[in-house]
């Protein structure tokens, strides 16, 4: 059915003067469960459906979308997309060019063992209620305790005027725990396994089960209460070790976003900003130390940003962004890749719904593992701080100056974790920070899923992945508050 509707829309667009057109028809199911303080805070099922048409007319883009997936509405939407493209062409400097990509007719489905939408709501809620109960009962100082589950499925159909026709079913799920405790006017927070409602993966319900929320709830609550007796993070410059659930966001903000080619070319200048990694630096700029290898990899199993094809029909790719510390690649679209003659898109274009315009979005931005074991990095550190689990984040519009806070930390002295520290924060400058990276672990390397990356105007929220383990950075300023 979608194939026929798609064909009609594209034929109509070309008839009305488009030199290129594509259509995405999709439906998203999103199950969101939250238990808070012994009660169901959210028991929600959200459905999104619709279609969007992109067209190039007179060398400029137009996009229109609607929730009504039928032939009549398709005609209106095509007409709007064409008229908008014509309006865009009033203000163009050059014609849009697209990189050549392999044209495929294909299907892709996230490999899963246990369908999260076939597992009963009762079963999921039983886990959440039990985990939240165990978390809450660790102390009367815990004022708010949360357990989370989210299951997501997107069925999407893509067709373009070049002959591509792709059907995909992307499924992901996950969850986590979070608690807030207050004692004598001081507030502390602790999450598991990561902030932003937990950890998520393109996988079946087996991934949510593997998080073992019930088994970990007690430890999370106990650690939270210990923070009240911890020392404040000292203000100093020292060696900093980040575990994966903080390092993932560090990669996201200071490597993921600045290597988006739309930012580097100035098309996000009005909102998210530009990038210090400007095109003349490609292949020449030393971004980090020789240990730093970072890839954009939409193919890695179970990554939250893993798929078969992006929303331009480009097959999922793995490209190097940073190789042995050198800035060597961008995340790109067909249009931006053509502009820099990159030889092809990185398969970086995704929209957060069929009603949204695809943008360059992170897939899985992975910091490749080193040779260390995580515990060896600690043992090798004479004086430093280890920080874990993101609590606050901020970075400038060119992605140079960042400041992060984490939920918990430990002082390291003579190779061992000493006392716990609270309210840890650190600040840095991207190339200096990554330039100081001297140790990367292998044994605890895993994919982390971040479901809430915001970008674009109008704003879109995308799910992205980050592979990393534990890493050490030298001479970092910590203790900002």
């Amino acid at each position, binding site marked *: 059915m979608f194939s026929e509707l798609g064909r009609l829309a594209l034929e109509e667009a070309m008839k009305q003067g488009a030199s290129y057109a594509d259509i995405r028809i999709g439906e*998203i199911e999103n199950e969101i469960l939250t238990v808070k303080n012994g*009660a*169901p805070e*959210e*028991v*929600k*099922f*959200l*459905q*999104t*459906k*619709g279609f969007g048409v992109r067209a190039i007319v007179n060398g*400029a*883009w*137009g*996009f*229109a*979308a*609607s*929730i009504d997936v039928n032939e009549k509405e398709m005609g209106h939407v095509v007409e709007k997309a064409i*008229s908008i493209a014509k*309006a*865009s062409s*009033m*203000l*163009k*400097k050059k014609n849009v060019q697209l990189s050549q990509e392999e044209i495929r007719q294909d299907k892709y489905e996230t490999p899963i063992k246990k369908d999260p939408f076939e597992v009963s*709501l*009762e079963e999921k*809620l039983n886990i959440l*209620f039990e985990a939240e109960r165990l978390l809450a009962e660790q102390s009367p100082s815990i*004022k*708010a305790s949360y357990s989370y589950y989210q299951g997501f499925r997107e069925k999407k159909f893509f067709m373009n005027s070049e002959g591509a026709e792709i059907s995909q079913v992307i499924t992901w799920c996950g969850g986590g725990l979070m608690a*807030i405790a207050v004692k004598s*006017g001081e*507030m502390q927070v602790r999450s598991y396994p990561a902030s932003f409602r937990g950890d998520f993966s393109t996988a079946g319900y087996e991934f949510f089960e593997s998080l073992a929320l019930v088994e970990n709830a007690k430890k999370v609550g106990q650690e939270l209460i210990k923070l009240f007796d911890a020392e404040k993070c000292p203000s100093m410059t020292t060696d900093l070790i980040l575990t994966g659930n903080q390092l993932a966001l560090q990669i996201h903000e200071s490597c993921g976003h600045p290597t988006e080619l739309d930012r580097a070319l*100035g*098309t*996000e*200048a*009005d909102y998210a900003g530009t990038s*210090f990694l400007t095109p003349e630096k490609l292949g020449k700029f030393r971004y980090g130390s020789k240990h730093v290898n970072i890839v954009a990899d939409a193919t890695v199993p179970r990554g939250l940003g893993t798929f078969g094809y992006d929303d331009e029909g480009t097959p999922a790719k793995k490209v190097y962004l940073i190789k042995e510390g050198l800035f060597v690649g961008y995340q790109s679209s067909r249009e931006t890749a053509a502009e820099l003659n990159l030889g092809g898109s990185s398969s970086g274009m995704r929209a957060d*719904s069929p*009603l949204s*315009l695809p943008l360059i979005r992170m897939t899985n931005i992975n910091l490749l593992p080193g040779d260390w074991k995580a515990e060896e990095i600690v043992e090798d550190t004479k004086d430093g701080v280890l920080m874990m689990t993101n*609590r*606050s984040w*901020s970075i*400038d*519009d*060119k992605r*140079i*100056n960042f*400041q992060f*806070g984490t939920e918990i930390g430990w002082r390291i002295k003579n190779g061992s974790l000493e006392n716990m520290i609270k309210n840890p924060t650190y*600040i840095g*400058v991207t190339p200096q920070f990554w330039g100081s990276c001297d140790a990367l672990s292998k044994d605890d390397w895993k994919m982390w899923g971040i479901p809430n990356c915001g970008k674009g*105007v109008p704003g879109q929220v995308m799910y992205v992945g980050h592979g990393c383990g534990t890493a050490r950075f030298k001479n970092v300023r910590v203790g*900002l*508050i």
Partner: protein
Amino acid sequence: MVIERLTEIVEKAVSATTNLGANQAQASAFLLENALTRYANSQIHQNVVSKNGGIVIKAFLPDKRMGTLRANTLEESEIERLAEKAVKIAKSARPDEGFKGLPEPEPWAPVEGAFVKETASCTPEYRAARVKEAIETAHNKSSIVKAVAGYFSSNTMYFAVANSLGVFAHARLTTASMKTTVISESEGSEGFGTAEKYTRNIKEIDPILLAEDAADKSVRSVKPTKIQLGNYEVVLSPLAVGTILSYLGYIGFSAIPYQNGSSFVKYFLNKQVFDEKLTVKDDARDPRTFYMTPIDGEGVPKKLKFLIKNGIVSEESICYDSLRAGKENKKSTGHSVPPITRWFYDMPVPFNMIMEPGDSRIEEMIEETKHGIFVTYFHYVNPVEPTKAILTGLTRDGTFLIENGEITKPIVNMRFTDSMLSALKNIPLLGKNQEMVKGTTVTPIKLNKLRFVGISSY
């Protein structure tokens, strides 16, 4: 026509849900027609229009089990199926003893001026023509203007909500906004400047005025110098003030952080926490607010509420929806956000915050500053420690050093990390001209001290 259709849908949805065994039911329906023309590198690069709509049904069973369903459809034939699914979800849930019931009906009246025909009927050609004016104006300002970016948007929202206790209300709203960011370059050094306008009437947007302002800041921003970190006097433009105030609303005045113990308000009740010149109210019926609406997402009539009164916060400052109010045996204050976004989270927040004006002009604030910083815009602000209202963020798009009452030179963007409780404790000068900045209406302000801890340079 649209409102009539939506009201029919919500009535039928409430009826279908209660017929299926729900003790209480709430249904809302919305239609959004959003258009946005985005430009960068002095040309249009994204130009979009979308028709989005949906139904949200909340079903409550007699034992207080609750289920929520949101679907992207306005087909009446789907209502029965959606009601069944909402009830099914509720049956799988567990009771929430804190739920005290949906809001009871209260009289409400539409607001005049929320919906402007000219905004609702804006065409892509109109938006493109205004963008062209902005681009040409900026380039005509100076030969060092390298690129102009921004967006011009026009949006229409129709919303209706009903519940089984008799609430039945609806609203329609138009919004329009334009942002212009100008990038200049001289001898390899870039300068940035930004100006924004938010209004319900698209005709009030003057692209030439915005472009002149943004270009002026941009041209003057090239070749910025680095200054020492530390505490500085600051003069904040309305864009910067709006960002700070909206974060205070989110971390301080919402019932969720208040009940969780993370809101600073909880620890400073009835205390002089801010300068006594600072009074902020939340009033969705005031024409000065951007998101002007007579009702909230649950159909509760919007009323005037003081968040900060002469620098003092109190229990009256907290914003509730019916669920969070029930947990404290209170009534909703009408701060449920309409569930129109795909990722909606039921967090009651003030989104009609109006800062009472003072009597100073921004030029006077600069004249009264001995050694300080002028901030056009704060970027990527986030809370670091909400109980102390510690925020961090960076200056952007026009940051200048003020020396002896004059702007003397552009400076490299800087990061602040500071408690807003201490920063806003002394506000020597408060502006007299209010501007809408999304969910806030604010004036420029001068602060005696803001702590800068980092610099955006390598």
